[in-house]
């Protein structure tokens, strides 16, 4: 009985540790990175210091990402002019698929390609999608793993609150 409960505890803690991998970044400075974007430009996170930045890790094979992206685009279109930026980081090996999906969904926010997965490792991304919200000071303030309908309201509340700071 004791061994079983210890094993259950260990399994739970391992699960909790893995599920909180990227959540552990909350409150810490957002690791800086530069990646090639869909427009051909290189974009660096630190150049957005002073703005609220949402980093959305996504992949073409991820259903919830497809569901979430148009909603994120709406958020970006609405708040871009008041100091909000959204960087979509695609982790596919083949960026042409991502380009096709961007065209299909008609998203307007910049999409960056992390085919070497360096940035995903930096942000300890172990779920898909992962959405990270960075404040004006460059600190990670909110981490969302996965996507369920209704998350967009949380994003909206958090972005609005950070824009007010």
């Amino acid at each position: 009985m004791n061994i079983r409960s210890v094993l259950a505890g260990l399994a739970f803690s391992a699960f909790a540790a893995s599920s909180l991998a990227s959540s552990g970044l909350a409150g810490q400075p957002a690791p800086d990175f530069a990646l090639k974007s869909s427009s051909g430009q290189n974009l660096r996170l630190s150049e957005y210091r002073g703005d609220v930045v949402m980093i959305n890790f996504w992949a073409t094979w991820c259903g919830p990402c497809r569901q979430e992206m148009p909603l994120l685009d709406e958020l970006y279109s609405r708040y871009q002019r008041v100091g909000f930026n959204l960087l979509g980081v695609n982790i596919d090996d083949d960026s042409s698929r991502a380009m096709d999906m961007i065209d299909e969904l008609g998203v307007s926010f910049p999409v960056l390609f992390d085919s070497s997965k360096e940035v995903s490792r930096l942000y300890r991304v172990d779920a898909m999608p992962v959405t990270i919200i960075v404040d004006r000071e460059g600190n990670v303030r909110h981490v969302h793993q996965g996507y369920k309908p209704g998350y967009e309201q949380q994003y909206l509340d958090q972005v609005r609150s950070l824009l007010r700071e």
Partner: protein
Amino acid sequence: MTRKLLMNLAAGLSLAIAATAVAGESAPPDAAQSASLAADAEDAASRDRFRALDQDVQSLKKEVLDLNRDLFLLEEELLFPANSQVAFFISMDVGEYFKLDSVRLTIDGKEVANYLYTDREAGSLLQGGVHRVHMANLKAGDHELVAIFTGQGPHSREYRRGATMNFSKGIGAKYVELEISDRVRKQQPEFVIKEWE
């Protein structure tokens, strides 16, 4: 006698009434004045306290910044001792025939840096900025540096060029500059690696 006594009493009474009246008239202004003075003094004291607190916060901020700088320098000295330190810098001159996108550095066959330049960073280089792209510890002896530059060449074509340099690391720090400049005669960019003395 009685009349005189009554007159004295009346005079005394009127004096007392007058004195009370005077006292009654002067008492309220004194209390109000002293209250407003006390409030002013308290305001001034709280302003002073606030100013002192603000100064304390400012000096604390300065101390934190100083400490941060000292720690940074100490960390660099510890991680990259002057004897084994080698630093690589990128600079650009003119840049009419080349728009820098990225630089990849390989030392002795091992990739040590791969830096992507944003438009703003490339613009800063064009304005005379110098970017330290990599800092390393290297043993004394001979080493080979290979730098691969990618970007847009003449007529906005994809451009990729490599430059190689063999250098000898002795005692003391070494600084290597990778300079991108225009070769006007050939209308091509030129990539030069040089050591700073």
